[in-house]
């Protein structure tokens, strides 16, 4: 009886192991996509994909990638790349497909590539200026629906032509997706940039009365560089913030933000870096008016002076006051830009309001209330000499 049972089990195991494994994926049959770019030109949508081909180790060839890059140049010089000519970008590592709608563009690359595309390793998604203005919600929802696609993928926009982002030869890099992602992760770790991933964008899109921010990368002097933020409302681009304007934004949105200031004091320039120590926002809603009280405590550190002078207690107090004033101005400028210029709450103040007045938030029109909201900013900065250098 037992032997019969075992024979049956062995038969079933043998059958399943040969026939089964329906979901086995052979990763060597796929090429791995690392960067996705989307552009819109005159009602036509173009998708650019950068991928890592699996057949790098062809017997007889070197593993050095410079062959690939030189092959992809097609003998054209870099100036012609700045035109709308997409054909020059198609190479070993980059694929372009186009279509009249997103769906058509998405599936035309299946007809153009020799291998299946594997989307589980995509590093970041870049939207061009035109596509961002027409609305990014469709592609974000596609990312939500596809299981392989990670929702921790970074989302960026670019103001320069998107073909320049994918120009490996000019940028002199092996893999653009890795470069951009490492750069942004480094900025996040150094508390210099906000997190803009797909999961956050998905949640922010659901609030119709408020907007959100996405990081912006541009190609400046043949190198990719982070250049401010892009403002979105209803998932459509309404404006940009340059690096200078985004100082206040960073202070409001990043935990333990890191900022640098230059203070002029008694004929020297003092270079100061500060970390946010305490950050509290209190909100109040009386008589239909929303009030926000922002309290910010910072620990500052004097990095260096252009000319060494001695500082006594009064000097330090003055410097602290100057730092606090500078920071206050930045914050107030950022808030005023959002209230007056763009009339959109992209600084996520609605979260603080909703955390206290959840049911009220559902009934009011947050956009109107935000434009007429009052802000009280209170900044205190303290100089903590972390490097044990005494300036007295």
């Amino acid at each position, binding site marked *: 009886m037992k032997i019969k049972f075992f024979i049956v089990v062995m038969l079933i195991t043998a059958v399943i192991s040969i026939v*089964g494994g329906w*979901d086995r994926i052979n990763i060597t049959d796929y090429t791995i996509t690392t960067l996705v770019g989307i552009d819109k030109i005159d009602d036509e949508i173009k998708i650019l994909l950068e991928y890592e081909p699996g057949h790098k180790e062809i017997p007889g060839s070197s593993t050095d990638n410079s062959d690939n890059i030189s092959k992809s140049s097609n003998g054209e010089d870099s100036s012609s790349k700045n035109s709308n000519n997409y054909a020059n970008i198609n190479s070993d590592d980059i694929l372009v497909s186009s279509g009249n709608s997103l769906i058509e563009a998405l599936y035309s690359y299946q007809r153009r590539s020799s291998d299946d595309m594997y989307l589980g390793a995509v590093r970041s998604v870049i939207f061009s200026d035109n596509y961002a203005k027409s609305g990014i919600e469709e592609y974000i929802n596609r990312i939500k629906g596809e299981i392989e696609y*990670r929702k921790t993928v970074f989302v960026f926009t670019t103001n320069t032509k998107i073909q320049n982002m994918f120009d490996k030869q000019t940028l002199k890099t092996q893999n653009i997706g890795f470069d951009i992602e490492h750069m942004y992760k480094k900025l996040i770790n150094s508390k210099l940039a906000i997190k803009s991933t797909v999961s956050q964008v998905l949640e922010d899109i659901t609030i119709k009365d408020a907007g959100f921010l996405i990081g912006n990368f541009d190609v400046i002097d043949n190198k990719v560089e982070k250049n401010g933020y892009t403002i979105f409302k209803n998932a459509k681009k309404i404006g940009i913030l340059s690096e200078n304007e985004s100082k206040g934004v960073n202070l409001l949105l990043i935990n333990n933000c890191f900022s640098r200031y230059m203070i002029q004091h008694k004929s020297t320039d003092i270079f100061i870096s500060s970390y946010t120590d305490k950050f509290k926002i209190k909100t109040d809603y009386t008589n239909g008016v929303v009030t926000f009280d922002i309290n910010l405590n910072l620990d500052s550190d004097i990095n260096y002076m252009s000319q060494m002078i001695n500082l006594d207690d009064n000097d330090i107090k003055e410097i602290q006051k100057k730092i606090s004033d500078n920071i206050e101005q930045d914050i107030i400028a950022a808030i005023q830009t959002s209230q007056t210029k763009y009339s959109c709450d992209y600084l996520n103040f609605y979260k603080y309001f909703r*955390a206290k*007045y959840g049911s009220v938030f559902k009934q009011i029109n947050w956009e109107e209330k935000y434009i007429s909201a009052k802000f009280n900013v209170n900044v205190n900065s303290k100089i903590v000499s972390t490097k044990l250098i005494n300036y007295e």
Partner: protein
Amino acid sequence: MKSTVTNRQIFFIIFLTLTGYSLISIPKDAVKSAGTGAWITVLLLTIGFMFGMFFIVSLNKKFEGKVLSEYSSLIVGKIMSKVITSIYSVYFLIISVFLFRAVSEFIKYNYLHLTPLFVITALILFVSAYNSYKGITNIGRICEIYGIIYVLVFIFMYITMLFLGDTKYIQPFFEKNEIKQYIFGVKDLIVPFLGIEILTMIPFGNVNTKKGRLYSLLSVLFVGVFYIMTIESSIAIIGINSIVNYDNALLEAMRETTIPGTFIPERIDFIFATVGIMGIICCLSIVFNTLSENVTKLLPRTNKNTIIIIISFVILILSGYIVNKDILKFLLNNIVPIYGIVVAFIIPIKLYIIAKVRKL
């Protein structure tokens, strides 16, 4: 008295039966019915089910070594006892069909997309039937080992998710205007708490007399706390508005968490594929075992192994071919909660009262 379980095993059996499958879907149900104050609803339900558990455990303690089908014949007579046992059998059959189908669908749509549904159902049926064939003591030991790993891993996950998420999403904790919504949300969250009735088929031995009741009640309390942690940490990662779109909210929340560090895998939902499935296996084995024990008491002359094989085939056919999505939804929303309350509350309370009156 060979088939006894220790107190610690009872704790884990109840815990894993309740949370095994419902953990995935509870954030969505809770937020849909009660918003950010869902923890109040869960707390109310915990207290209610602790109340119901008290009666079941007291009956078990009074009639030591006997299960419901045996001591109910002492209380209300043989014919009523058979009726009660058949009520319980039908209930557990419905629950088993629903559970096996739901778990197979969950595995198919999240991990194994192309595998046929009946193969997955057959696989998990085999494990549950094998576990049930070995007896309740064995199931208790397995729940002990798996339960500890399950609890530790998930609590670590929740703490990480709370730290990495945005705590502004889970506020406001309490709003006076929404009290009605909190209380009326109770009716949507009954199904995750159904499972305490499996204790009717687990006999208490002399090791359980002293602290058995305490451990069972503690277990239900711990389940409530666990559910609250699940809901809050899922909301902190995903956000209060998007969470109602996901049927498997906890899994999505795990997919969206990135633990900082270069040597740790980026997507941590494989933790659910290992540890979560351990909990699901325990839950399914316990339900299957209860069903087979009930049917064995109904047909005392048949061999237990034959009954297990027949039940497996019945569940395989029912969950694969006969039940489709509409019937499942109808069952889940309308029939199962009411049936569950009858089976978990009304019948044990009635039996307890009759036993007290008759001074048994």
